[in-house]
């Protein structure tokens, strides 16, 4: 198989570095994106369509990062883009909101099991921070219970003390507990009576670098009861999983009901909108919290979200993605084992996490991912990967071919691997 090189990407990166901090900042950059080695990865895109993207050097990739989640129907989905074009003719960022905002809120209330209302912003972090503020306003309590390794955005409260720009005051109200350890939550509630406003968690535990963990049987039901008994708001950060497990919400998928649930990523197939949905009992408090932004009521992303959610419901997108993910991950594990590699798959199959376990420092995994990328399958090393609805069986077969060759190359480099 031909392997890719990236001279144009590298040139653009040098140009970017002169005028942009880090060249490409954040999770799309080679540093935080863990492009290892960076020479194996493209940095800049020329175009994208369906399940594929083409970099500036003309290399084609099947994209298993899906823009880190937003690409849920396929890039440039015709139905979503048609809705966008129609709304653009009417208006987008305007002095008064359009009725599209109400249409989207109604759709979410009809779709998401726990939702009695919806509030819109732009990024996942906007709505996780808003959820925390609502919980504090509703309970008049300061503290939040969070799970160690959980990610809720980049607001100062969601980061760690010791990180640049973070002060003790930013994180002093956070209590960190271990995932699936209900006794930790009970202990925290006992230790801080009347002080805990909120439990915030992802529907299942999907930190970076670590195997993902599903909720143990009965875990969420016990957490729900604990929160209800102690007047604590249960806020679910469904930013990453939302609409990839169940259009009715990931709380519904795991058999419980959240008080607040945060959506972003897959909600509008790449158009910029996030949503916080909540129960009726928190609607008035949500009104009372001062929270807004210049572009939060723009109509074009609302139109995109309506088209995306409608289509996901029509085609049962989450089920489709779970099935495709299962087929792919079973195949990856199988081709890995053929060459003596233990590829551990964890989490839900529509946004699975994977890791080669043969060594204790992830080097083999990084080498294998690099070889896949060089051959046109874009994985990243230590984050969830994502399935989208545009992926076909042929795409999965192609991915498995590439994965097999990549395993073979790494095996040749490391003859000590058994099998």
């Amino acid at each position, binding site marked *: 198989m031909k392997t890719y090189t990236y001279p144009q990407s590298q040139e653009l*990166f040098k140009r970017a*570095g002169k005028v942009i901090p*880090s*060249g490409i900042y954040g999770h799309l950059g080679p*540093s935080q994106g863990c492009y*290892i080695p*960076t*020479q194996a990865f493209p940095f800049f895109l020329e175009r994208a369509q369906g399940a594929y993207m083409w970099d500036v050097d003309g290399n084609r990739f099947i994209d298993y990062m899906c823009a880190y989640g937003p690409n849920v129907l396929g890039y440039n989905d015709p139905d979503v883009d048609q809705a966008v074009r129609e709304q653009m003719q009417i208006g987008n960022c305007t002095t008064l909101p359009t009725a599209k905002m109400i249409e989207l809120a109604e759709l979410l209330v009809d779709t998401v099991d726990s939702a009695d209302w919806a509030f819109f912003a732009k990024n996942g972090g906007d709505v996780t921070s808003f959820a925390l503020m609502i919980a504090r306003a509703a309970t008049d309590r300061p503290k939040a219970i969070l799970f160690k390794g959980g990610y809720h955005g980049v607001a100062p409260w969601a980061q760690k003390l010791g990180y640049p720009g973070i002060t003790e005051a930013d994180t002093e109200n956070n209590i960190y507990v271990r995932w699936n350890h209900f006794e930790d939550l009970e202990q925290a509630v006992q230790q801080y009576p009347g002080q805990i406003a909120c439990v915030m968690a992802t529907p299942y535990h999907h930190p970076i670098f670590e195997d993902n963990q599903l909720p143990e049987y009965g875990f969420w039901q016990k957490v729900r009861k604990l929160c209800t008994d102690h007047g604590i708001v249960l806020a679910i950060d469904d930013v990453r999983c939302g609409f990839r497990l169940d259009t009715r919400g990931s709380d519904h998928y795991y058999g419980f009901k959240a008080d607040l649930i945060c959506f972003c990523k897959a909600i509008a197939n790449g158009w910029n909108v996030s949503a916080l949905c909540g129960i009726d009992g928190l609607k008035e408090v949500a009104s009372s919290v001062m929270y807004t932004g210049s572009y939060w009521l723009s109509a074009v992303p609302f139109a995109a979200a309506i088209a995306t959610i409608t289509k996901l419901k029509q085609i049962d997108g989450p089920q489709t993605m779970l099935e495709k993910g299962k087929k792919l991950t079973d195949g990856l594990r199988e081709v890995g084992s053929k060459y003596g590699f233990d590829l551990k798959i964890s989490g839900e199959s529509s946004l699975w996490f994977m890791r080669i376990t043969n060594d204790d*420092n992830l080097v083999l995994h990084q080498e294998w991912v690099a070889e896949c990328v060089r051959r046109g399958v874009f994985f990243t090393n230590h984050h969830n990967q994502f399935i989208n609805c545009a992926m076909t069986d042929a795409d999965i077969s192609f991915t498995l071919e590439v994965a097999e060759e990549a395993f073979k190359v790494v095996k040749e480099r490391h003859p000590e691997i058994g099998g």
Partner: protein
Amino acid sequence: MVDENVKACINLHAVLRNMEDLCELDKEAHDIIQGKNVAIRFSVKNIPAAIMTFNSGKCIMEKTESRNCHMNLLFKSPEHFNLMIEGKRNPIPTKGFRRIGFLKRDFARLADRLSYYLKPTHELLRNKDSARINTILTAYTAFFAIPEIANNDPLGKLNASRIADGTINIEIDQGPAIHITARSGRLEAAKGKASNARAFMVFDSIDTASGILNGTLDSYSCIGTGQLAIRGLVPMIDNLNKILAQVAGYLR
């Protein structure tokens, strides 16, 4: 916020420790110590002591509580030691008065050579050989300072507690290497590469290492261009870098 205790630890176990390498890399320093046999103990209140031994044309610095030395230099407080490093106070010799001449003459010249490299002029940096020595000593200072911050500074301890047990190799391609080992949130640095490292950080050249450590190159951009390569358990490096970022504040 600069903690004087941590600063004294860095000054002793990272800055002054460079005397070992200075005597190997700089001809003038190398010549000064020829034929000398003297072991100097630095006893600074509240911080771990060190003995610097000049023998057989080499300098060896050891963090130790041993009192087996020719000369003992007492510092009443970490502040006292830090002021000595800045050239504003003198140590109190409590043992080895016969060797005071070495301290006043030879050691003072060595200290001047060390300052010459660690506080370089533009002229020094234009000279390739001198710039190389400057980078090596700067790198050793920075990386040996990491455990001192990790084990003593409150924020450093917090970031160190997030580093998984194991070893991080840090090397300059075709140049020196050190490794830092984490065990239950405590860090230790040693020269050379470890064979069982769990994370790796490789500067592609002495110039890249120099640029990143002197703040003229952005490490994140260097990762993108491949000038700085990282691999393995990246969170170990990520948290280590947060400690490394504190070093400049202590050496300012």
